């Protein structure tokens, strides 16, 4: 009984029945008619859900036989797992879609009928196993779409609708023709029968027949360039209709393609190529798009292209067991996200990307928007991420580099425009207000629900991979904290601290070797920086704590990762969360986007390398990196480049200064001191796995070594020329990371210890200085150093922080920094990189320029009169600073407590060349007793200090006011103007300023320009003319046919 009630055939019966009844009911009670419609749609959902449930439990596919005759002599329908999955999704979307646009539907009984019949058509297309029957359902769906698109009968919708009609009728004409030709050759219309007898489809005639059927279905999937009509429809149709067109109708065609694909073995490369072309081209064009609805159109079209490609390629390489994971994952992401976005689009007034800022008035929606965008962009934890991972891995196994390259290129472009859109939504101000009161929750609640489904699907897909339980912990911790994001700042801070501390206590003991050291660096470093987070009293920081926790936990999972997937997942999570944190800055929209794009590009390089490694070794473990290295250097180079981008390496550093400068001041400390270490960790992951091969990589390592030092020099010079305090420190970070890159490339014991030592060093002093600077910026409200001066009187502790910081950076003994320099030169000399050592000297000398400029122009010299009453930095900032200082002092006093563990951690990979005699460290070339130096300097410092004190005891020392100087033989009238600060090293600029030309920035601007130009040229196809579009369809099918014949 239950089985009969829930027979999938009932979907069609009920829809047709409702179609007849609705006008009758509507005439009496429009309200009841609506209820009937909802009941029918709900019934569809129940049927598909029930079967999905039983099928997933292992039940056989439901075969529906009509007219009591077995196929192929009668039409048969099938309701298998795949069908159930797609239809459950479609029918659910239809139910919510109907609710979403109920205001419009309830006006006319015909609208309701059309809607139900429309959904029935989709169901039929998915279920049927008969080619002619497919044609009928295609036509049913198409005719209902034609009408629904133009439901509002406005001019634009009518234009778009008519173009759609032309394209749709052409496509279905071809489908019919093709079907008949196939029937002529084979005598059957049953798809399964056709597949069995496909050898009967022969010759150019058979190819043409197949081409017509395929062409018809592909055209409906909107391939580039034959898709102008589709874009117009997405843009012009009512949002609810566009949503279902994009996800429901397209799903049906995709499924139709999936069904007939076994007939098309020789077509597969061409199908894949057309899909990929569409994916890449639409994403290029998306770069230029400013209307969100049309942008969604491009995104839809692109996603469909990718699904077609994945489907075709997986079939081609007989990887059909991955189709559910890859195509299913891509599909469900696209499905849920696109539906949600189109629904949101319907709520928002205006047709500019910036109008989406209206969502900010309802936080849950802006968060939902973010999640939808993230899901589309293929970032974790959403289904696309897993799908793309599997797709790339599978394709690479068959050496399909070209396909993978273009898939990743398209994905990168997608990230650009999607997150630019998000950036505009969070940064711009719309003059229109969001109005969702009239429709209650039925327009936005489904969006939130779909976000939840996306997360759930992501989790389900994650479980099909071999991942540790904790792999997605960062996401859940972040979500959990997001729930309490409305509470007080202090409370959230404490909660976040507790989470991170608990996580550290759990994680760090489970790590060993270098990972353990990185754990000890990154997690406590984050805790210290988080302590500072409440320094801006009375300022709410929505989103900060959840994202911060997510970032820290993803860093932790990165350290704990054992598989390439685990590593990549954590890497991406870290990228996303840090991007979002950067974007919280007031003017961070563009910088954060640039940061994201570079990070994702870097991540794709890593992904590509992992795929290569997997293809060579068949292993997903990180340890496979070493085995793969035997075969080729490419994985090594790619991985290095990926990590290099994250560290802001020279040439790819252009994201860094602005991202550092524009994010929240205390978060800059996190970015510089902690997050950049992820790149260093990446280097070491590769390095430690490939120790055996490093000896044979002399050329690569030499190049990397030089690049690192040039980076150090360029960073230092650019820092010296900066007027913006945060730019200065950002460039300084680039420079300091340059040394780490070089010491890593030295690849001997001293070198690696130096790299680790420098990393610890950098963490400590950059955390210290950035926090001190955060305090200064909080008090003086300007980032330009020449607008400051003389603040030592107001902010003595901050001054001391910066002082300790710059002494440490400069490498002057006796503080910690000298150890780094000493190890650096020892390593360079040991390796025989003599000229490089000279360059390192130069770079570290230039560092003095910016360090002095930094401390002088802010704290010394003449104070501005408006800063007379500036107070010391808030306590929240001082506590971590003091902790950092204590750590620096402790490590300076006892360098061995730092170097010894580093040396031990490196020793398993690089045999130790150190000899210890108490505190005395002896290398092959030199020796250094840090403890003794510290003591000697300490004692020596006391001597003149006591001397001065003694002398000054007997004389009268008068403390004078700030302006008590004699300048050009008189007391200056406005002494503040005598603060020498602007263009501090003008002569340096004259001498070697040509080294600071922003060539890299210009280059990447050129690349961006080029991308936009490509987009602009590609979209020349879309003239808006219906006949052109029709012509393109013919052209497209013609070219496809020729391509198939030639190949």
């Amino acid at each position, binding site marked *: 009984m239950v089985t009969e009630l829930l027979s999938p055939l009932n979907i069609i019966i009920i829809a047709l029945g409702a179609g007849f009844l609705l006008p009758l009911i509507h005439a009496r009670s429009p309200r009841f008619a609506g209820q009937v419609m909802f009941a029918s749609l709900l019934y569809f959902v129940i049927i598909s859900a029930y079967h999905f449930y039983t099928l997933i439990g292992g039940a056989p596919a439901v075969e529906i036989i009509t007219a009591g005759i077995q196929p192929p002599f009668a039409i048969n329908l099938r309701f298998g797992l795949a069908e159930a999955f797609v239809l459950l999704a479609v029918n659910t979307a239809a139910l919510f879609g109907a609710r979403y646009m109920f205001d419009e539907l309830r006006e006319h009984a015909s609208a309701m009928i059309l809607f139900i019949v429309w959904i029935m058509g989709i169901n039929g297309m998915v279920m049927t196993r008969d080619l002619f029957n497919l044609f009928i359902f295609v036509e049913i769906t198409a005719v209902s779409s034609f009408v629904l698109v133009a439901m509002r009968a406005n001019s634009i919708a009518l234009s778009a609708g008519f173009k759609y009609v032309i394209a749709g009728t052409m496509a279905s004409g071809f489908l019919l023709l093709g079907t008949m030709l196939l029937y002529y050759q084979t005598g059957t219309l049953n798809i399964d029968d056709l597949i069995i007898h496909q050898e009967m489809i022969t010759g150019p005639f058979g190819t043409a027949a197949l081409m017509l059927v395929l062409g018809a279905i592909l055209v409906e999937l909107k391939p580039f360039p034959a898709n102008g009509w589709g874009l117009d429809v997405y843009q012009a149709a009512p949002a609810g209709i566009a949503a279902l067109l994009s996800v429901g109708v397209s799903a049906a065609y995709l499924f139709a393609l999936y069904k007939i694909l076994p007939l098309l073995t020789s077509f597969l490369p061409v199908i894949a190529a057309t899909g990929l072309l569409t994916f890449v081209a639409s994403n290029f064009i998306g770069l230029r798009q400013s209307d969100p609805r049309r942008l969604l159109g491009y995104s839809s079209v692109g996603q469909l292209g990718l699904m077609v490609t994945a489907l075709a390629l997986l079939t081609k390489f007989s990887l059909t067991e991955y189709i559910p994971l890859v195509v299913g994952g891509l599909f469900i992401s696209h499905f849920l996200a696109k539906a949600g976005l189109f629904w949101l689009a319907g709520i928002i007034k205006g047709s500019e990307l910036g109008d989406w800022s209206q969502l900010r008035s309802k936080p849950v929606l802006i968060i939902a928007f973010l999640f939808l965008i993230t899901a589309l962009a293929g970032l974790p934890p959403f289904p696309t991420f897993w799908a793309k991972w599997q797709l790339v891995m599978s394709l690479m196994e068959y050496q399909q580099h070209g396909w993978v390259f273009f898939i990743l290129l398209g994905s990168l472009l997608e990230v650009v425009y999607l997150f630019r859109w998000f950036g505009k939504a969070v940064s711009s101000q719309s003059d229109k207000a969001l109005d969702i009161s009239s429709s209650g929750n039925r327009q936005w609640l489904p969006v939130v629900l779909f976000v939840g489904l996306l997360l759930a699907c992501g989790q389900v897909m994650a479980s099909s991979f071999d991942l540790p339980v904790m792999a997605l912990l960062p996401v859940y911790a972040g979500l959990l904290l997001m729930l309490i994001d409305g509470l007080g700042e202090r409370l959230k801070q404490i909660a976040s601290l507790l989470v991170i501390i608990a996580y550290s206590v759990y994680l760090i003991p489970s790590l060993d070797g270098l990972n353990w050291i990185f754990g000890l660096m990154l997690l406590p470093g984050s805790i210290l920086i988080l302590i500072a987070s409440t320094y801006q009293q009375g300022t709410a920081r929505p989103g900060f704590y959840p994202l911060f926790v997510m970032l820290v936990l993803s860093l932790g999972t990165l350290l704990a990762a054992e598989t390439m997937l685990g590593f990549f997942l954590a890497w991406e999570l870290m990228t996303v969360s840090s991007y979002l944190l950067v974007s919280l800055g007031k003017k961070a929209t563009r910088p954060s986007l640039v940061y994201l794009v570079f990070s994702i590009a870097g991540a794709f390089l890593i992904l590509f390398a992992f795929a290569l490694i997997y293809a060579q070794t068949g292993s997903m473990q990180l340890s496979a990196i070493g085995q793969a290295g035997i075969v080729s250097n490419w994985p090594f180079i790619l991985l290095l480049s990926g990590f290099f981008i994250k560290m802001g390496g020279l040439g790819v550093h252009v994201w860094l200064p602005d991202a550092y400068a524009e994010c929240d001041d205390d978060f800059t400390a996190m970015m510089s001191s902690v997050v950049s270490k992820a790149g260093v960790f990446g280097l070491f992951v590769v390095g430690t796995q490939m120790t055996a091969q490093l000896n044979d990589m002399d050329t690569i390592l030499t190049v990397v070594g030089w690049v690192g030092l040039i980076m150090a020099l360029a960073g230092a010079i650019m820092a010296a020329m900066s007027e913006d305090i945060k730019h200065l420190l950002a460039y300084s970070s680039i420079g300091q990371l340059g040394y780490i890159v070089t010491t890593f490339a030295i690849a001997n014991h001293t070198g690696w210890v130096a790299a680790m030592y420098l990393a610890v060093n950098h963490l400590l002093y950059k955390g210290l200085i950035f926090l001190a600077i955060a305090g200064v910026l909080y008090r003086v409200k300007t980032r330009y150093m020449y607008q400051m001066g003389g603040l030592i009187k107001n902010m003595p502790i901050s001054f001391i922080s910066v002082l300790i910081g710059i002494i440490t950076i400069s490498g002057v*003994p006796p503080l910690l920094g000298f150890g780094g320099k000493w190890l650096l030169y020892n390593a360079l000399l040991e390796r025989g990189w003599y000229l490089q050592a000279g360059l390192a000297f130069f770079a570290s000398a230039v560092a*003095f320029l910016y360090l002095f400029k930094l401390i002088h122009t802010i704290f010394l010299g003449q104070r501005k009169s408006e800063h007379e009453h500036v107070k010391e930095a808030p306590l929240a900032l001082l506590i971590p600073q003091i902790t950092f200082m204590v750590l620096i002092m402790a490590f300076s006093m006892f360098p061995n407590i730092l170097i010894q563990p580093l040396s031990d951690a490196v020793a398993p990979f690089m045999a130790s060349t150190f000899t210890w005699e108490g505190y005395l460290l002896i290398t092959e070339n030199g020796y*250094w*007793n840090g403890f*003794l130096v510290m003591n000697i300097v300490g004692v020596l410092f006391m001597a003149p200090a006591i001397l001065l004190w003694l002398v000054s005891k007997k004389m009268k020392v008068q403390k004078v006011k700030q302006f008590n100087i004699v300048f050009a033989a008189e007391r200056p009238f406005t002494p503040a103007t005598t603060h020498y600060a602007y263009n501090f090293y003008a002569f340096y600029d004259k001498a070697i300023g040509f080294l600071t030309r922003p060539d890299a920035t210009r280059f990447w601007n050129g690349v961006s320009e080029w991308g936009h130009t490509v987009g602009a040229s590609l979209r020349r196809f879309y003239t808006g003319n219906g006949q052109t579009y029709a012509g393109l369809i013919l052209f497209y099918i013609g070219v496809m046919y020729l391509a198939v014949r030639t190949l």
Partner: protein
Amino acid sequence: MNWALSIFYYIVTVLVVLVYGLLLYAFIAKTMARVQGRIGIPIYQPFLDIIQTYGRRTAVTHGYMFDLGPVFRLTGGLGTLAFIPVIYGSEIFGNFHFAGDLLLVMYFIFFGQLGMALGAGESGHPYAPMGIARGLAQMTAFEVPFALAVIAVFMQYETASITEIVAAQQGSIYNWTLFTNPFAVLAAMFAFLGMSMYPPFDLVTAPNEIPIGPPTEYHSAYLSLLQTNRAIFAGAKLVLFMNLFFGGATNLPIMVLKTWAIYMIPVLIGVAFPRFKVENSIRFFLGVPTLVGIIAVLYMQYWGTV
């Protein structure tokens, strides 16, 4: 090692170097005066100056960093000296060279300069940062040939220990780095011109532009510390050059003779040249001297060790 004894020896060294440094200063001043046709100061004038400034009864301070500036400066001088063995093989003049090698000395040189720069910065006088900016900029440039020279020396002796470098030069005058590694010495001497702040590289204190430069606001006891340091620091630097390039010294008279000779080089060049502009000075050091330094390194790499 007897700590009390080594501290005592160190104090002796400091005093000797101090006296020597002051005398040298007076001698050079007198030499220059004679070249310019003046009589010049009496040889004991620096001693009078230093006593006079220590004896001042009033002082003006601009803040605690201002106070600490000269302290840092003198510590820098004392420390640099402390890590260099002044006389080879001498227990008295050996100092604390066992605490660290050449790299330590090269970086410790910056210690005093940095502290002094900060102290002068707090004075609020614009000449101070101007002078410092010039000095730092020039320093970055002459540091390049100097570093290359030191690297070449390192390559030659395969150690960064100053004592061992001196040891390797003993025996004959032809064992001096000057003859075994001439390019390195040439590059280093170029750098030495920059370090010595005589024309044409006297940018930091440039009279008639930024008179006195960084220490403009320093006076009385502060100035006395600076004067003390000038003598000690100059001595330490000369000794370093002597050790690295000119065979070191096994006794005091040799030390005096050699360092005096080394010091005369910038002095003699200085009396004959006008001042460079800052940017020209930077370009100069990054030009020929750097090239010589690179040649020195390449020379050592490909021919030196045969």
